[in-house]
């Protein structure tokens, strides 16, 4: 029995789709009525995991949709960002990532945090280079001063999909 579901919310001609659960061999992507829809927003924050069969099911499902509608992906978890970078077509050409979670770690507190980066504000791609523009203090997470939260991914690899 799959724990996967998509909740829908229509804002005028924009359809927001909130994904929850695991994308695996039991996933069943629902038939969605795209009448009067001009654009899509995929909120991926609650995706728990994705396996190899899930990757295939995602590719099969998203390809025809991306051919018709521009898609904005928001609140993308690390597991989905890895797929954007690793699997061609997982982030279709007609889709853009608007926000994604970036792992951070504080050696002093032995603490991990996932910070939500907004593309265009905290990170952007310019001429095949990825530039980051953030202060950890902006996220108001750590009361220790100075905060020692550091990015915990290889930046060039993690944001590779933005260069494509």
């Amino acid at each position: 029995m799959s724990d996967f579901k998509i909740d829908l919310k229509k804002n005028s001609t924009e359809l927001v789709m909130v994904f929850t659960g695991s994308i695996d061999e039991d996933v069943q992507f629902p038939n969605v009525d795209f009448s009067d829809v001009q654009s899509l927003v995929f909120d991926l924050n609650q995706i728990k995991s994705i396996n190899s069969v899930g990757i295939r099911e995602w590719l099969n499902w998203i390809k025809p949709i991306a051919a018709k509608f521009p898609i904005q992906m928001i609140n993308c978890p690390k597991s989905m960002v890895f797929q954007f970078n690793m699997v061609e077509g997982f982030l279709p050409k007609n889709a853009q990532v608007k926000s994604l979670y970036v792992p951070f770690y504080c050696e002093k507190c032995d603490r991990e945090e996932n910070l939500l980066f907004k593309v265009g504000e905290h990170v952007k791609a310019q001429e095949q280079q990825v530039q980051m523009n953030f202060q950890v203090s902006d996220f108001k997470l750590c009361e220790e001063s100075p905060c020692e939260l550091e990015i915990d991914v290889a930046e060039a690899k993690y944001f590779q999909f933005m260069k494509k």
Partner: protein
Amino acid sequence: MSVLKLPQQILAQSVSEQEVFAPGSILITQNAESSFAVKMASQHQANHIVDEKALNFESEKLIAENMILHPVEFLNQPIEYLLPESEAEFSFQMKCSSTENKRHALGQIEMFVRAVPGTKSIATDAIAALDEMYTNASKNSGVFYSKVDAQGQLLQARAGKVEVFARASKNHLLVGCVDTYGLLKIDSLMKKILGCYENGVAQSINMNQEAGAGIGSFLVYNSSMSYYLAVEPNKKTIIFCAFPLGVRTKHLNSFAKCLHLLTYERSST
């Protein structure tokens, strides 16, 4: 008393196109790329590739020696050769039938993995790896995705067992599956994994929805630091992989990979 010849260790300084490694040899690499070990296995019949930059280089060489010199013992008790209980800080084992609810089984092992100290950065990968291994064992081996035989009769699932393991030392976590089908073809698997590296993952996906996607083993190999495969044809398949403990996410790829392969048929005498 017979003296067992120690496996030959070969430095992978340069390998010619035609070179084929003798069974019982251990190829020592030096900070090689992830795809190199698979290439050596697929194109040059290397069965044991151990990198000097591996987290546990000496232990990996010992594992290779034991798999070469004691294959029957390894097939009988693989986890004892990979990480003996005497050296383990934490241990988990669970027997499942092939039709057992996968989520329940994985839920149990996820609780164990997340409770082991130092798994924060690798827990998701380790559980994902077990998902792939368990799915391959229980579904692809036992249940043939509605396949039919030559007469058009639906193939029935063979009853079988899947056993999942997780064991942690001070510096690494070992997870794996043993099934009672023994259907894995190691040569084909190495070709598939190499294909993912050389042609891309998307190009390697099997789009036939009546079977697995064909990239699961690549995902396991790519995310782990050591990969162990052993098959007793039509009897048993053993798959394990290892992850480092207490390592930050951005340093996970700093350990070069080790690969160990064994196909062995016991004599009937």
